[in-house]
């Protein structure tokens, strides 16, 4: 007996774009009649020779294969339209694949959406039974688990109220609770936790982790929240345009997903970036940012980052400050690098300023810089001249000896290695 829970072999799912068929029986009959007589389809669009052609087909999933072991928590990430939800739909048997084969053992409990089958007029109690039955439980099973379901959802007080009076949070809690208590071997979750509050999200994640680790259930989890993926999953696949582009370690998967392999060129032309900040003031703009002493944005751990910025002024200004917001590739903020009162400028002037940022405490990984030019307005508040969101992605490379050659547990320890603790006996204070 091998320990696979799910085996997916070369799955394809094809959708047709636009209206299906002619939309009416008449349209389809026309097309069919034209086909029989070998004439041109009267319903096809003129000059329709695009790559999608052949009836505007779209491959939502294009030859996906992977296997999931029993008791494994697999994360699935990818940008919108990558095919995540389609994949889950196929697994839940909501729709069938166009080609390929999916095999699995045991029951699948799916939560593609919270409260599937909840009927607003029925009470919480009735809906628990309803929802449980939809997910494949028998009445006897639900009877046995009913108290635990209600307790987990923290809904004792409201269980006999029609769910149409529930808040969306209450809805999710109850629905998740039902799905989580299903005795299924496989659990499939699609971003269902987004609605619950932090405490409940944590409770759910713990429950799912227990399901995987203790009960040996298999969990498939889709989310755009990298933190929950990190906390829950031990393996992760990245989908892009219907294909698996990465399969393996969670951290690496998140990096692939976040960066999707984009290398920052040594000199970044900032003029081409779209400014997302709304309240920018004219006067001085960033033109480009360039790495010094190297042709790639990569340093060794413990090194300082040297770069230069090109600035073009259109007004006379004094005491302009520069700063770089430092963030991890998944978007979480780490710190900010400040250079207050960096320069003054005259209208029409172009300045190049070489800079050195002390990032020696950053641990190996990939980081983003968001350069900002700012100053003080006449009222004594901040005003911003320029702001280029995530203009640069740079990499801090590990080197021998870092952290005593032990692995840095980024998940728990974060991205900054502060100086080591001083033993006061030795320093002699």
């Amino acid at each position, binding site marked *: *007996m*091998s320990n*696979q829970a799910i*085996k997916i072999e070369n799955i394809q799912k094809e*959708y047709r774009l636009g209206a*299906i*068929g002619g939309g*009416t*029986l008449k349209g*389809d009959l026309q097309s069919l009649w034209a086909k029989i007589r070998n004439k041109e389809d009267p319903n096809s669009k003129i000059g329709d020779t695009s790559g999608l052609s052949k009836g505007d087909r779209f491959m939502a999933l294009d030859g996906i294969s992977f*296997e999931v072991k029993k008791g494994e928590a697999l994360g699935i990430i990818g940008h919108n339209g990558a095919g995540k939800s389609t994949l889950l*739909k*196929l697994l*839940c*048997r*909501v*729709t*069938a*694949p*166009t*080609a*390929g*084969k*999916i*095999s*699995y*053992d*045991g029951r*699948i409990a*799916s939560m*593609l*959406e919270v409260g*599937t*089958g909840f*009927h607003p*007029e*029925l009470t919480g109690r*009735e809906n628990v*039974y*309803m929802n449980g*039955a*939809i*997910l*494949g*439980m*028998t*009445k006897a099973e639900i009877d046995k688990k009913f108290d635990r379901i209600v307790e987990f959802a923290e809904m004792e007080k409201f269980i006999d109220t*029609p769910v149409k009076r529930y808040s969306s949070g209450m809805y999710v809690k109850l629905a998740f609770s039902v799905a989580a208590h299903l005795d299924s071997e496989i659990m499939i979750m699609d971003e269902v936790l987004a609605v619950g509050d932090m405490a409940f999200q944590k409770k759910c994640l713990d429950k799912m982790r227990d399901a995987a680790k203790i009960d040996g259930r298999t969990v498939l989890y889709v989310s755009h929240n990298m933190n929950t993926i990190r906390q829950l999953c031990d393996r992760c696949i990245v989908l892009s345009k219907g294909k698996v582009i990465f399969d393996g370690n969670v951290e690496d998967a998140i990096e692939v997903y976040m960066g999707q392999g984009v290398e920052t060129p040594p000199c970044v032309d900032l003029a081409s970036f779209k400014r997302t900040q709304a309240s920018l003031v004219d006067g001085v703009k960033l033109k480009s940012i360039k790495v010094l002493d190297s042709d790639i944005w990569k340093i060794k751990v413990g090194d300082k980052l040297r770069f230069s910025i090109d600035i073009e002024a259109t007004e006379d200004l004094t005491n302009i400050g520069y700063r770089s917001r430092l963030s991890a590739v998944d978007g979480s903020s780490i710190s900010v690098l400040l250079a207050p009162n960096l320069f003054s400028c005259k209208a029409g002037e172009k300045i190049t300023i070489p800079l050195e940022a002390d990032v020696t405490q950053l641990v190996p990984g990939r980081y983003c810089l968001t350069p900002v030019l700012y100053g003080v307005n006449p009222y004594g508040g901040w005003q911003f001249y320029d702001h280029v969101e995530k203009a640069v992605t740079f990499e801090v490379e590990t080197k021998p000896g870092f952290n005593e050659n032990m692995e840095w547990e980024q998940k728990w320890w974060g991205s900054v290695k502060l100086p080591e603790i001083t033993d006061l006996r030795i320093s002699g204070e």
Partner: protein
Amino acid sequence: MDIQNNKEQKFQTVIEPKNGWFDLHLKEMLQYRDLVFLFVKRNFVSMYKQTVLGPLWAVIQPLLTTVVFTLVFGNIAGLAADGVPSFIFYLSGTILWTYFNQCLTQTANTFVANRNTLGKVYFPRLVMPVSTVLSNLISLAIQFVFMIGFLIFYVVTDQGCEPNLYILMTPLIILQLALLSLGCGIIISALTTKYRDLAMLVGFGTQLWMYASPIAYDMGSMTVFAPGGKYHTLIMLNPLTPIVNLFRYAYLGLGEPEWIFYGISWAITLVILFIGIILFSKVEKTFMDTV
């Protein structure tokens, strides 16, 4: 690739692109029988939630229809049967028709009406129409009790109603009605996943069907439909006609059952049901993409 096992792992469930024609999963229906009953309960409870009269509405609707039929077709047009009060004549036809009509239109709408639930979770799709047909049975039962009340009144006051032993066939009559409406309903629902045109026809079609069945008139009162009449065979081939006739014969003592046509009616019912189930299981896997 892993190390090749000599024994390929056997999985319990395998999903493949297409269903075979006879891949009906009827066994699965048994596993989900609790779901069927919960759907029945849900349908019934939610129908009358927040209404003052509650399930009484189940009686009021056919009652009003019966009154209208009695006035228009019975008193003005004179199409009711001789020998029995026209009220009970129309009531008996109306409750059968109401049941059939409700089942048919609701099951025909199954995929479209429940696409939110069906699009998110798997269960045997046939659960939906089957539970619709079952939940309508509850309304039928209420109406039936109501009819029996009137019948007793008419029998006691000796107004020509003669119930006979054929009332024992009631379960069979209801069963056939249920199967026939289920069959027609799921054929339409299977076809409407792609072409909504048919859904437009359902409301209109059922109305026509009603006039093609002896609901609003007695066959004996129209010479073309009466036994020996020009279109007698034609109307008897409508599977509903023998059902309604048998029902009225059993409870009102009206007419004579024609057993050959009754048999044919059963045959048609089973064929329709069979086609329906096959079509339904053919589309159930992928209807979510087109509905």
